[in-house]
């Protein structure tokens, strides 16, 4: 992935741990002034560079509570894999609801695939796949097959095409054997897989997943992760996810946003950059991945610069190099115990 460029800051941001180049929240006023609504609209029209942008959106709920998705700009480029981290109640779900037009901001602007989702989601919905956090409410149809085939049927596609797309989605997620099952008799993980299949069935350009791995066992998690990475690599799909599992983040995202309580976007950068800011993360109740902490600690103690590894395999590689006694033929870390290598 190319290094991320924060165009409004004019800096190229590098990937190394220890270099505090990643963006940290500037003063709120400065941010607000630099992103007027018109500029946002003009810069992300039609099939522009950005799949999604949020410009300092404020939302007030009926019970009076407020979420302000301000601070750093939320801008997702096409083909990127973006992860949103934050404590519970920080507004992750609010952000997602704004992206899909379920919520309309009291102030600020949102743009997804060039349109305002609160008004024009219908124009782009065939190109977007969404899975929200509560899967039960998203499984509407009587059987799994009915649910996965939901979108193609609604869009009036011919029967053969519906069948092809649905079978493809079922096979991809590996749930073909569930096709005739009734949703409420599935396990949580199976339900989530069904929902993801339903989101992927129309081969979307943008996939938005709120906590996609919740309820999945490690094997299923890896399966889904590999599939998503493959779709991004092969089709240039854009991926926006949120997760609690920080250890997965290096494998599933090129770009990370960290939210604090109340919705403030306090960190933005590559996983390596973001996980270097331990204090900011701690304030948001996030613990950096084990590997990041380990390598940060090693860097500090030894003085040797150790870039944060993106995966377990990379970490093992680096450590093995340093230790210098890697045995030939040994099982490589990063091969999961079911034998499938991680997708690179």
């Amino acid at each position, binding site marked *: 992935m190319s290094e991320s460029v924060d165009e409004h800051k004019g800096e190229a941001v590098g990937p190394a741990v220890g270099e505090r180049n990643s963006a940290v929240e500037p003063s709120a006023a400065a941010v607000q002034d630099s992103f007027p609504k018109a500029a946002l609209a003009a810069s992300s029209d039609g099939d522009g560079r950005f799949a999604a942008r949020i410009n300092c959106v404020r939302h007030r709920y009926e019970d009076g509570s407020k979420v302000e998705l301000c601070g750093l700009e939320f801008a997702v480029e096409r083909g990127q894999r973006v992860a949103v981290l934050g404590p519970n109640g920080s507004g992750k779900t609010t952000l997602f609801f704004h992206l899909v*037009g*379920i919520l309309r901001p009291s102030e600020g602007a949102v743009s997804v695939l060039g349109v305002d989702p609160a008004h024009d989601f219908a124009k782009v919905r065939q190109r977007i796949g969404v899975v*929200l956090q509560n899967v039960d*409410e998203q499984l509407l149809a*009587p059987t799994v097959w009915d649910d996965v085939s*939901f979108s193609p049927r*609604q*869009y009036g596609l011919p029967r053969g095409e519906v069948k092809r797309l649905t079978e493809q989605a079922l096979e991809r997620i590996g749930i073909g054997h569930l096709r005739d099952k009734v949703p409420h008799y599935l396990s949580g993980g199976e339900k989530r897989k069904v929902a993801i299949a339903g989101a992927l069935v129309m081969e979307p350009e943008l996939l938005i997943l709120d906590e996609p791995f919740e309820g999945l066992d490690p094997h299923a998690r890896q399966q889904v992760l590999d599939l998503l990475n493959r779709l991004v690599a092969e089709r240039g799909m854009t991926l926006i996810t949120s997760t609690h599992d920080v250890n997965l983040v290096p494998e599933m995202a090129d770009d990370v946003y960290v939210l604090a309580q109340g919705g403030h976007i306090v960190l933005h950068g590559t996983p390596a950059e973001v996980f270097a800011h331990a204090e900011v993360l701690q304030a948001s109740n996030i613990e950096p991945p084990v590997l990041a902490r380990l390598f940060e600690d090693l860097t500090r103690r030894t003085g040797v610069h150790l870039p944060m590894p993106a995966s377990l395999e990379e970490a093992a590689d680096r450590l093995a190099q340093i230790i210098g006694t890697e045995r030939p033929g040994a099982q490589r870390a990063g091969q999961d115990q079911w034998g499938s290598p991680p997708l690179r």
Partner: protein
Amino acid sequence: MDIATVDYWANAGGSYLHRASPTAKLMAAALGLAAVIVVFNLFLVATVFVLVVALAWRAGIPVRKLILISLYPGVFALLFAMAQFHGDFIIPGTTIAKAVGAASVVVLLIATTPYPRLFAALRPVLPGFIVEVLYVTYRSVFILLGVLSDVLIAVRLRGGFTGRALGRRLQGAAVALAVATLRSFEISERTYAVMQMRGYSGRISGEASGGLHLRDVPLVGAAAAVAGQAFLFRYEWRALNPFSWAPFAAALLVLAVAMLVPRAAVAGGRERPVSEMLRGDAQ
């Protein structure tokens, strides 16, 4: 919750009855209902009931539970039965029997046919909008039952429902229902959002309304025979009533055969009784 139990029976079973087409089962149920309603003869009402039990047995449906569920309308029939009581137990008894018999037919239908498939079979006679509402209602019942059971557990754990005091029960129920009501709104909004995002244009289920197959003929034929016999007895009661014990005896015979012939021997051994699955499955 009974509705959840019956839904499980309908989805888990693989008997002949389970595999019959929903349209055929609807027709058979209608004929069975007609038979119960038309007659006023305790023997003939009992005939239908006994046949239902026989079918339930073969389908692997837990018979005792089915009878218990069917007794529920019988309790209400009691009120009407009492209004009819003039020193003679037979008339009120038959009224109650009719209620229970009719319910047993319907419960057998729903115990062997998942609700959505029934809705699909009803598509030709109901407006599409109503069918959609039925689908969402069905799914939502299970979502809400989940919510309700969690809340009821919480209430119970905090001491609600203790004692038999009506006030306590009402309070506990009120809290549970308040939470359920609130969740309902949120769920309906999110469902709307999801339907919109997925492009809903009016048809949740892709299932075709399904027709009749050759293998359904025995079922519908038998039901038609029972209904025909009931009509006959009703209109030629003068001549036939003395023989009304005959259909009842025949039904008992059918029941005996149904219970004695091992289930695996029927339908090529592909049957797997629900009661076995209930015992063996982790739900």
